[in-house]
């Protein structure tokens, strides 16, 4: 299944408006792995994943039609 991703901060600069293809029932962990392959710059980055506007944990499942957001920590003040 193809999922659309909304990215913030530096991640948005790296992936832009890209989509990502996952298998139905894949977890957030699988999404991290898939993105690391698709965008090597993300491989060592730390960021939170939200499913349908709710921060998820690595074992959360992603379903067809879910909206995904990627949020890195910001440091500036």
């Amino acid at each position: 299944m193809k999922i659309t991703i909304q990215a913030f901060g530096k991640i948005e600069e790296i992936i832009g408006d890209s989509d990502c293809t996952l298998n139905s029932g894949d977890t957030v962990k699988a999404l991290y792995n898939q993105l690391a392959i698709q965008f090597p710059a993300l491989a060592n980055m730390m960021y939170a994943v939200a499913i349908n506007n709710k921060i998820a944990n690595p074992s959360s499942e992603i379903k067809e039609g879910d909206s995904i957001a990627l949020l890195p920590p910001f440091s500036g003040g």
Partner: protein
Amino acid sequence: MNFDKYQRQIAHKKIGVNGQIKLKEASVLVVGAGGLGCPVLTYLTAAGVGKIGIVDGDDVELSNLPRQVLYSEQDIDKNKAKCALRYLKELNGDVKFQCFPMHLDNEFALEIVIDYDIVIDCTDDFATRYILNDACCIMGRPLVYAAISGDEGQVAVFNILAKELTATYRDLFPVPPQNDEVPTCEQSGVVGVLPGIIGLIQANEVIKIITEQKDVLMNQVLIFNLSNYQSHILEIPRNMDVKRPNTFEEFKSFNYAKFCNREDDAVEEIDFFNLEEMKKESNVVFVDVREESELASGKLEGFLVVPMSRFESEMKFIRATTKAVFICKSGSRSRKAAKIYKEKYSNVVVYSIRNGLEEKQKQMYH
């Protein structure tokens, strides 16, 4: 209380006389008097918050002025907390201030936080953010958080007691990012209005908490984009697996610098006061990796200048045979430079000055 002064706020249905009295009775601790801290401090002072603590160990720099609007050119090289205090006292004589011209560390954080109702995170580094988060969890204080990057800002209210305790910074980001993974304002640039807007959202959350308004940003993080004005709110569930120091002892002995990847095993960090000792040794090369624009206040005696922006192409001029000591403003770039140098010249023992030139300032305050 001078009701005439606050008439417009009192007339607002969400504040009223009761709300204005609550503001006067409230105390807030603003950690960081930079891009976010300036609007937060200005508007909470003007709004008549009773007591405000200002924490910042940095001096005002020329490059701060376009966004840190409390300061003028006359303030350059003076401590930010002290400069802010001078201006804010004039702005509203009703407010009591406490000034802490120092970097908040886990040695003093609990003692300072306990004296305030609400803590406001206007810092620009991860170690201090985790220190503040954990201190607020231990002392039971709400933490009004914000941070910026590029054209975006994040705002959230953590650890506030609603029906039950709400999400904390660690529920959003359980562990800090790797060193240098997240660009600073220095590297990625920032337009002054962004921290202005984000800081005002932060100040608004503080006023909402004090006056007991609904819709406080708890269990949520707001992300605001300056270029298209879009905002998103993501829900943050509490993560029961998250670990953090829970007691005074655990908190004080926790190594936040190491946790935030600010220590590297290949690079030994030494304190500023060890420099004199090392200067007596022969065969030690001292290197300042600050940019030339940062050297306006004077070069360091006995240091070779190799700016970080040209470090890899110019490090061949360092010619160290046994030991090399690196310094910068805060100890971050010098650590990176020392690591790069070590990779190329593995027989040289490298040192980085912990907290850089800021350590020198800190010693002056203790």
